[in-house]
């Protein structure tokens, strides 16, 4: 994986009246990354993306893209960038083809070739609808058109804000595969903001979790998930008795009682010994699993924030 940083936010802040939407945001995206940008609703993801695209002026701080400051040199910084910000909106009275011409023309400074427009539309399966006005398009079709306009002009960085919103399962799968293909075959760097955690887990190589306008964690997805690998969840009865046993066991580092299960921190190799221990003490174990999904990790990070 490349170590070249192509996007960097530097102490990025945004305040709307008295409320800080983004606080001291610092993250980096390396060339070739599929960067998952996660956070609960209202966490500041969209505000951050809008600042990257210069739709919103930061209260302080800056964004550097390909070494150019978005604040000082917006045109240079965005030259090789494309994307979708929230839901894709278009000029509804114009055809899909005309909308593509406008999107491409604003980037290139000239009308893009018919071939490139048709190619982009073909990738998202809209080639046969290019002459239709966008006002008759469904939400899913607009979403695909949004991706098509992002692919036009061969950008090196694509920022996709909830790109699979409104798509059917097949469409979602197609987009995921497309993102991986763009990254692997074309070397395109992708920033993927999504609330669908399994989606990010399937495609992202690096990620950041934002909550209350601040980055809580960031790093390689595999590293972040492995930090969580010692967490195991046990479904056992009676719970209180099992809790006491596990708490006094030298094999367990940490025990916490969840709604229906017990969460323990221990090495995976200790699990058979612990199961024997529980069984000898007449506890009934129904299941044990390793907690390592992105969703679990996301919830643990964002719930820590709530407790704080």
């Amino acid at each position: 994986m490349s170590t070249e940083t192509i996007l960097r936010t530097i102490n990025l802040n945004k305040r709307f009246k008295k409320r800080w939407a983004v606080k001291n945001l610092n993250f980096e995206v390396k060339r070739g990354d599929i960067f998952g940008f996660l956070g609960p609703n209202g966490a500041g993801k969209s505000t951050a993306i809008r600042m990257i695209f210069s739709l919103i002026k930061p209260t302080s701080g800056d964004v550097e893209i390909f070494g150019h400051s978005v604040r000082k040199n917006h045109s240079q910084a965005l030259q090789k960038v494309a994307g979708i910000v929230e839901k894709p909106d278009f000029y509804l009275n114009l055809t899909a083809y005309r909308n593509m011409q406008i999107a491409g023309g604003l980037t290139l400074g000239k009308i893009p070739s018919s071939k490139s427009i048709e190619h982009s539309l073909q990738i998202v399966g809209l080639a046969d609808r290019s002459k239709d006005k966008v006002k008759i398009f469904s939400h899913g079709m607009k979403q695909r058109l949004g991706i098509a306009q992002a692919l036009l002009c061969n950008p090196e960085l694509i920022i996709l804000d909830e790109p699979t919103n409104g798509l059917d399962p097949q469409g979602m799968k197609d987009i995921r595969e497309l993102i991986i293909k763009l990254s692997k075959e074309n070397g395109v760097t992708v920033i993927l903001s999504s609330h669908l955690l399994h989606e990010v887990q399937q495609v992202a190589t690096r990620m950041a979790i934002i909550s209350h306008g601040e980055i809580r964690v960031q790093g390689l997805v595999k590293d972040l998930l492995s930090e969580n690998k010692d967490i195991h969840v046990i479904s056992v009865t009676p719970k209180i008795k099992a809790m006491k046993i596990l708490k006094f066991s030298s094999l367990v580092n940490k025990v916490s009682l969840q709604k229906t299960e017990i969460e323990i921190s221990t090495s995976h190799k200790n699990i058979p010994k612990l199961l024997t221990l529980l069984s000898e003490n007449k506890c009934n174990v129904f299941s044990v699993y390793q907690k390592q999904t992105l969703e679990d990790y996301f919830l643990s990070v964002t719930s820590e924030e709530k407790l704080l």
Partner: protein
Amino acid sequence: MLLLIYFELLKTFSKWRTYIGFITVSVVIPVVMYALYYEGGGFINAQTRSIQKEFFMVGNLFNGWVIAQLIMNSLWVHIPFLITLVAGDQLAGEAAAGTFRLSLIRPISRSKFLFAKYFTTLIYTALLVIVIALLSLGLGLYFFGSGDLIAFAENSITILHEDLLLNRFILAYALAILSMSVVASLAFLFSSFVENAIGPIIATMAVLVCLLVISNLPVDLFENYKPYLFTTYQNAWSLAFKDILDWNEISRAVTIMISYLVGFYSLTLLIFIKKDILT
């Protein structure tokens, strides 16, 4: 820049509201023509009744030029309203539709984007006035024929020979385009504040009506302000129908109107460059 203007023209002329103005004048002007044709010379007789005892009038006084000049009086309020429908929608419409997120994430400067929009607004304004000119002069001269023009001013009546009239009308319509452009610029400015087009349309018309009242009230209190109000020059076109053209007065009117154009546009630019796109 030409490409940006081309895109703005595409966007503007793809909207139904753009054609409301053209359709309205295309319907209203023939209806007015028909009504006047039906009325016959009654209208001109009524207008000249007070001087008929002193003057002996011959020739076709109820002609196409007179009709065209009469229609120009719609430039006070009616045509400005049609212009604000489009000008007030230029920025607010994009904000409401969320399409700033399509265009402003591109590597183009906001100032260029704004200028293309503004220039398109001025093209629309000019086109509407030109369509009015072509319809009223074309139909007027076709149905009512040519002749001298009786121009009614505040306290005088000027009779202009028909040989002079084409040039005078060209000057009048040029001044009308300029005064309508000021109205369009005001609506464009208001359009930069909000996320729906209704606000700018209502605000522009409210300002226009208020200032028109002040401009036309014969009250000493306002006399010092009147020369600086753009509404005072709303009928700058009538300067083209004076017996002898007063170029000083025309230049002053043009200077004031251009100052307003530059002022309104500069203010819009200042607002738009700093504006957070939240829709």
